[in-house]
Each structure stands twice: as C-alpha cells, then as structure tokens.
C-alpha cells in the first residue's frame, strides 16, 4: 500500500491505496465521486477527463499514486451542490449538448481546459480539433461544439 495526500475539488484527501489503483478508480470507488466516467478504459474516449494541476488528463491512464501531492478537479468541483451551474455546464444544458450524458463530464472538463488555454473566442474548427480525444456516441457533436463556443463566451462574463 502507498500513502497519498492530494487536494480534490479544493479539499485535502489522505488515503492508503494499492499503487496499481487508477486515479479514476480512486475518485469513483474511494471518494465516491462518480461523475467521472469510464468509457473505454483504453485512453481513447475522454469520458474520464479530470484536471490535474489545472490541466485536462485522462484519469483512466493516470495512477492515483502519481497524483500524490497534486491537485485534482472533477466535474463535481465545477459548481457547489445547490449553487448555480458552472457557465460551461449551463451552456451544455441550454444548447442541448448531451443526450445520454455519459461523455458529458469529460467533454465539459476538456472544454474548460480548452478555454483556460485558448481563450473565450473559439472558432468551430479549433473546438473540433481540441475534441480529438473525446468521443460521444449520441449527439453527432454538433451541439457539443455549439455548447462549448457559448460556454467559452459565458465564462468570460463570469470571470
């Protein structure tokens, strides 16, 4: 077992984990943060994307021990329970950016990272290129792209 201490959604977390625990398993099974999904488990689909030190990473391809001493943010960390949704979440709701919702947490965490890196005025082709690592089996992407463009603008206003 290995002792790890990290910050998850702003709260300090200490735990004893088997080193082979994936970050996504740790989040879902130890911390019960089940908003982060496992779609493929083979690093392809992006359903498991969380922020590690502010950057989008695939938590199915990251060991929990490697996050020791670091900061993790999950979809649950974007807006407090009962508080208004994060502008990117709100944009997905408003623009119908989801159907079954399975890919949505990963899409939104990827989108927020994208805005952090590339700003609030995002041409469609940039959004599409940046979604390379996120698969959606329902929407056909059109509304996801629309949602992200709108969410990016809304984030500028709320910042």
């Amino acid at each position: 077992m290995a002792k790890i201490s990290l910050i998850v959604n702003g709260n300090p977390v200490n735990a004893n984990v088997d080193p082979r625990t994936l970050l996504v398993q740790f989040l879902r099974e130890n911390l019960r943060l089940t908003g982060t999904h496992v779609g493929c488990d083979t690093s392809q689909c992006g359903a498991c994307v969380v922020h590690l030190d502010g950057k989008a990473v695939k938590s199915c391809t990251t060991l929990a021990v490697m996050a020791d001493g670091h900061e993790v943010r999950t979809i649950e960390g974007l807006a407090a329970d009962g508080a208004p949704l994060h502008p990117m979440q709100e944009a997905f709701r408003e623009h119908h950016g989801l159907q079954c919702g399975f890919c949505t947490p990963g899409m939104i965490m990827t989108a927020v990272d994208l805005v952090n890196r590339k700003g609030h005025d995002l041409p469609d082709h940039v959004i599409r290129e940046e979604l390379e690592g996120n698969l959606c089996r329902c929407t056909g992407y059109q509304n996801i792209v629309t949602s992200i463009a709108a969410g990016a603008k809304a984030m500028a206003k709320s910042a």
Partner: protein
Amino acid sequence: MYEFKYHRPATVRQAANLLVKNEDAKVIAGGHTLVPVMKQRLASPPHLIDLSHIEGLDAIEMKGRSLVIGATAKHADVATSPIVGEAIPALAELAGGIGDPAVRHKGTLGGSLANNDPTADYPAAVLALGATIVTNKRRLKAEEFFQGLFTTALENDEIITKVMFPLPKKAAYIKFRNQASRYALVGVFVAKRPSDVRVAVTGAGSDGVFRATAFEEALKKRFSHKVLDGVSASAEGLNSDLHGSAEYRAHLIGVLTRRAVEAATAK
C-alpha cells in the same frame, strides 16, 4: 494490472540506483504508454520508478547552437514553448500534433523515444535533425539509438535525461494520421541541416523509423520539391496492415516528403 511497488526518486542518480537494485524495475514518466500496456498485462514490472517528480528533468533551453529538451518535458510543454517555437518551429508543431490535448498533458519526449513505437512522431524528428540522446551513462547519436521495432540502445538501468537538437536551417514535419489511433500512418520529417539534408520516415517501416536516402540525395542538390519529380520510395520493408498496404505507404512517403519540403521552404 499486476501488483508493483511504487518509488518516487528525487534525482536521476536515485532513480538509476533503484533500477540497479530492483530486478525488472521500470521507470515511468507520463505513463501514457506504460499504464495501458500494464492494464493489458503485457508488462508487469514489480517496481515502478516515477521520473515525473525529478526537478529540472523537464527543462527546455538553448545551449550554444543546440536546443536542449529534458526527458520529462511533456508534449504540451514542447508544443507551446516559445524557446522551441523560435529555435525549431517544426518540432513544436510535431509535439502539438501528438494524440490529443489530454495525452499531450502527460506524455513525454523521453517516454516516446524509449518506447520507439514504429508509428510515434518524435523518432522522426530526432533522426532527421541528427539529435543526440543523453542518458545517465553516455551520449547516443540518433542512428545508434533506434534499433528496430520498440527497440533502442538503452540498457536496463539507463535513463534518458535529455535530447540535444542541433538547429537546422529549415525543417518541417507532415503527418498523415491514422484516424482512429491518431498515431502516424506515415510521417515525414525533412531537415535541411548546415551540412546535409535528412528525410526521416515514421509509421511506414516494419523496422521502425528510417531515412529515405533517395529523397535525401535529390534534395542535397537543391532543396526544392521540384527536384523530387521521379523520385519514389520502394514498398520493400514497409508495413502492410488493415490501415494501409506497403504500396500505399510508399506512395504516402513521396507525397508527404514533397509537402514537407514545400512547408519547410515556405517558412
């Protein structure tokens, strides 16, 4: 995934000692090749030595006429580094085209080279630019380092610490992506160096990255895509799989080399 013990050394020397002391131990950097392989139980190292917390091992700097990139520099760091963008923009573009944004936030230069996947991007740049791979033990020229499919000159207890890229006069990388995996179906890195011209091809060779000498010879006379009319790559020794035949890959080498030379001369 099988059980293993996790180590987090603070220095390369500590990491190397751990490798010597623990039989079959492996280093892990970004984990974006090793973790998937361990999940599939194709690798089961009893000890994992995490390089990602060694301070300074991800540094990017100019040293004289060389761009020096630390082994744990992530693809995203290389893609967005103003130093790389100034010195060898083709290298920054290559790094920015690896996988997807989340992969680029974790995957590293050293991990990519040590793995020597026949469809990886960095090996083409390292071979075409004539880079030197520096380890905790020695310096290796690109042509000695790559030794075929997933095989390198690295010894069991050897760790890549940095890579030194001499500055080219002109360079460009063009990748024809496999739409599913995002790796290169074929990728061609062309470098006009002070002394010669090099054309390195990834994704195509059944023995990994290689130099397309026929194209190099033609380009040495004049660095222009015009001299490439009539030059073609042979399908012999190229991969044939469900993604493309050897003949198709040979064809792509010609097309991408022309495009790369055009891109390099336009810069």
